[in-house]
């Protein structure tokens, strides 16, 4: 069920992979074919989200909704699904991020329900 929900993102142009990371950085589920080590990436995304959450709170007692990490040849989107799970999506460069965000918003409940 969760894998199916993640696969919906792969339909979008430029999306390479999507995964759900558990608290602690373990990859719960993944979809897509990438050469990168998703386990390692999961841990780093988890760390990144913790730091970003701290920053959001420190800056304005605000709640973090999403992070984008843009690289020269790709982009990573990460967002908290709940207190214990993070959704990470890897894309190629110049991908329509707005579309991905829209799909994410649309499918968030489905993904959360499948956890």
């Amino acid at each position: 069920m969760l894998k199916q929900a993640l696969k919906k993102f792969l339909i979008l142009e430029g999306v390479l992979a999507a995964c759900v990371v558990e608290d602690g950085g373990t990859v719960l589920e993944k979809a897509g074919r990438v050469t990168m080590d998703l386990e390692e990436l999961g841990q780093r995304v988890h760390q990144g989200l913790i730091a970003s959450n701290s920053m959001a709170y420190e800056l304005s007692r605000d709640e973090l909704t999403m992070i984008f990490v843009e690289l020269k040849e790709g982009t990573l989107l990460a967002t908290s699904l709940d207190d214990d799970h993070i959704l990470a999506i890897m894309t190629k460069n110049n991908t329509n991020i707005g579309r991905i965000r829209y799909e994410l918003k649309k499918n968030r409940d489905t993904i959360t329900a499948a956890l």
Partner: protein
Amino acid sequence: MINDLPKGKSIGAMQASLQWISTHTIRFIGAVVITIGDGEGFILIKKGTPEAYYFQHGSKVLRGKPAFDYFSTHDLLTFRLQKYNAEEYRKASALYNGEQGSELTPAPLDVDIPAISVKPAPESSRPPARAKPIKKTAVYPGFDPEEGNDTTSQESQKSHEFVPDVRKILESAENSLDFSDSISDVTESEEDDDAQELPEDRAELLEEAETEDRPIAPAAAPAEPQSAPEQSKDAPRDTEPFTTSPGPRTFPVEDSEVADLGWILRRNGVLAASVFSDGFSVVALGDADFEAVAAIAEDALRAAESIATAMGMGAFVQMTLQMKGKNVIIAPYRDTHICFLTSPKTHLGQIRGILQELALRNSQQGT
């Protein structure tokens, strides 16, 4: 006393906040002669280190910290810059200290002064900051420049409402790479000759700056706070020698960095911006507490860089933290990193555009 100050070489006259002055006199040696209403005062500055604060209105005189406090209460100061050579500076310093007399003690300095940082007041519906003289205000406790004068309460009210337009000041900051550009129309005609000699002045200042110690670079910075090397006894304690961060280390702040931040801040939707290095805010503009955030931003940055390594998709370009109330962007900037806040309505395309323009701007400056 002010009339007895060495005349020096007039660089120009302008309006700006005390903070702005503090961040743009790193290479300046001389007096910043400040006019507030009918009163006049000065700050003696030696390469970014304020060594004396003085203000006089009629028979009332403020020195050291009280004068600093009084200047601080004004969001915008009207001043002229008088550049001194070593001899003129020595004379000015002697005049200041001599007049005080050996029996007189410096003004009491028992209150901590907040360190100077580039943090303009938040914008609101304000009147234009420039082209208007600053009204006299009586905000320093126990000192009323209006005392004895006939002023209406309406005028007094107006004076308190007079606050600077942040964007205008930042515009000045950007132009400050060359003080001659900032010389306003209020520069006296007799100073025209001096103004023409400005390029030579600036070259001289730069030359002098290069031959003397500069603030310690981040990599070599000590863990302890750096104290001003020649700070006068009358200069307020705890006042950073014109660095823009009250953190435990001092960093050299370049005019161009302030100018770049000012440029970013004028982009649509940008609320505040900071350059940070090794977890410390080097310089910040706008309404945000970057001092507290810089260390966390460094953590977020490291996480982003490790994500970049794990993904193997090229170098780190930028990181955007999207919050409900604002966006935070962290990106490489020269040898350090830049962090800026935008409104939530600013979309990723705009952010990318700002970063690309900034990179282009820096490459053009480098050539």
